[in-house]
């Protein structure tokens, strides 16, 4: 770093040389949530950067310790709110491993389908917001337009646009709606063309390239030492993807590629994410085909684990199955007692400890789940990729211009709900 430029103090008239410390955030439009960056500037150059986090801390990990295992799903889905299905999946896979059970095949395929669609929505939000930050406003409009189409599908499948709590221990809440596969197929046919459009807009766009190329560079060794995973790591030339490396949910039986670039800059991360959306479409298409060939229940057939036991949306729009209601209310006292115990206590999970990790849109999303053998988790630790990746920010921007900070933060794609949990 060169010497700070000299300037004349307006009150005393003496010549001084010093740096300036400014706060970016906590509510700055380019910080992707409530993130505060304390920047020490020498003119336009960032000398030091210290991210300050915690503004969105809601104690999700502590809360899960005082709720049943099943209620845990509704908490963890709120951590990284742009990839709710991944949180639910990692949590449920962990609890299932503790229980020694596996979701049904159809449920696993539905999980893969919603997760890959979720990866696309998450990357679309990244594309839209970083486009907005770098002045590409039309990309923002297109990104949110396409995301809306997928959100509508999520709403049709799960009933909610976010925080779905759709993936549950032992399966998923309910099967796809009847018109689901047809709607999703329409979407899968539409999206490749739309991704081509983004590419046409951005790929050789001089402004986009100027703002992203050579910005926020991380070398592979740096990224590994700082614990970076996901697209930011794959942009440095390392083809690390948990879906290939340590497969879960049978990802090894799907045909897809892991896009990798070697430049390690913000532009490489953009290229990787765009390519990942195409790969996700490939996986979603395969999953959809298999779902249609795989009939069967979507919840494990084990009354001590499977919950909710049976749902069917009636004409009144309420999800209770009339046959099940008749069974517990009129036919069997034992069934009613069991129902009551499942609602108030939930599953009992054998004592033990597991670390269940999935490849979220931002990297390795890991859940360390500890059970003491009771009805509630003893400890749930969320290893959120945003939290870890954000740690690499100072390494990306120190020594570069303050304007590059915006592009660098955007290229990490942090979600502060996940960072702060």
């Amino acid at each position: 770093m060169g010497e700070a430029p000299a300037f004349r103090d307006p009150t005393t008239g003496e010549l001084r040389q010093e740096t300036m410390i400014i706060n970016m955030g906590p509510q700055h439009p380019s910080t992707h949530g409530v993130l505060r960056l304390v920047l020490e500037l020498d003119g336009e150059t960032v000398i030091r950067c210290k991210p300050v986090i915690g503004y969105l801390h809601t104690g999700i990990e502590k809360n899960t310790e005082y709720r049943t295992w099943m209620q845990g799903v509704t908490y963890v889905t709120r951590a990284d709110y742009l990839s709710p299905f991944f949180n639910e999946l990692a949590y449920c896979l962990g609890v299932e491993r503790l229980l020694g059970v596996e979701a049904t095949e159809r449920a696993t395929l539905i999980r893969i389908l919603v997760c890959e669609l979720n990866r696309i929505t998450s990357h679309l939000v990244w594309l839209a917001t970083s486009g907005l930050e770098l002045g590409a406003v039309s990309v923002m409009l297109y990104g949110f337009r396409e995301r809306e189409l997928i959100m509508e599908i999520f709403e049709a499948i799960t009933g909610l646009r976010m925080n779905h709590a759709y993936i549950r221990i032992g399966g998923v809440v309910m099967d796809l709606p009847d018109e689901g596969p047809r709607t999703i197929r329409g979407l899968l046919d539409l999206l490749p063309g739309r991704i081509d459009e983004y590419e046409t807009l951005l790929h050789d766009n001089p402004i986009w390239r100027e703002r992203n190329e050579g910005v926020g560079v991380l070398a592979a060794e740096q990224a590994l030492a700082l614990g970076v995973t996901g697209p930011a790591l794959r942009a440095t030339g390392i083809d690390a993807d948990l879906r290939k490396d340590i497969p879960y949910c049978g990802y090894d039986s799907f045909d897809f590629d892991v896009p990798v670039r070697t430049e390690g800059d913000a532009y490489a991360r953009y290229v990787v994410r765009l390519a990942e959306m195409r790969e996700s479409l490939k996986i979603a298409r395969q999953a959809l085909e298999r779902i249609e060939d795989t009939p069967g229940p979507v919840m494990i057939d084990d009354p001590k684990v499977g919950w909710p036991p049976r749902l069917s949306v009636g004409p009144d729009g309420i999800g209770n199955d009339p046959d099940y209601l008749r069974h517990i209310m009129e036919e069997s006292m034992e069934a009613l007692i069991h129902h009551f115990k499942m609602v108030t206590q939930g599953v009992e999970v054998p004592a033990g400890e597991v670390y269940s990790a999935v490849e979220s849109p931002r990297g390795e999303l890991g859940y360390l789940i500890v059970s003491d053998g009771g009805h509630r988790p003893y400890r749930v630790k969320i290893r959120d990729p945003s939290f870890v990746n954000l740690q690499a920010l100072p390494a990306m921007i120190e020594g570069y211009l303050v304007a590059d900070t915006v592009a660098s933060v955007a290229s990490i794609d942090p979600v502060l709900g996940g960072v702060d949990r």
Partner: protein
Amino acid sequence: MNAEALAGRIGERVADVLVARGEVTAIVEREHLLETLAWLRDQPDVALDFLASVTASHWLEVDPAFWVDYELRSFRHKHRARVKVGLSEGDAHIPSVAPMFPTADWHERETFDFYGIVFDGHPDLTRILLPDDWEGYPLRKDQPLGGVPTWFRGATMPPVDERGMA
């Protein structure tokens, strides 16, 4: 390497290694933590050179009261393992691994923030998610949970662990 083979290989160095649910856990003494992690990182056939996560759990009325947990991953061999260190209640100190794995910086700050475990040699061991003036370590099991004041006159919502559910 599959879990059993990996456990066998780590067992050459660490006495206490177990495999449960397909996951390898090595339990080491605090004094041997750094050298064990260096060994796991440097063996070409183990190569657990990526630290995914550091965290802890707290247990009442047992010793060790704290288990500090290091999740390791190998990109080269596509396997993972966990190293655990037990700490006593009045002696929650452990050497920082941040000099070896820079990523541990924030993980250790978070663990300090939640459990009050002190990582000796950490460059900047301050609170990270909670406010700087927060008192206590909220993820310890003996932290009072507090009640929620309600708008109904004279009523309070008891803490979640006293509501008699679950």
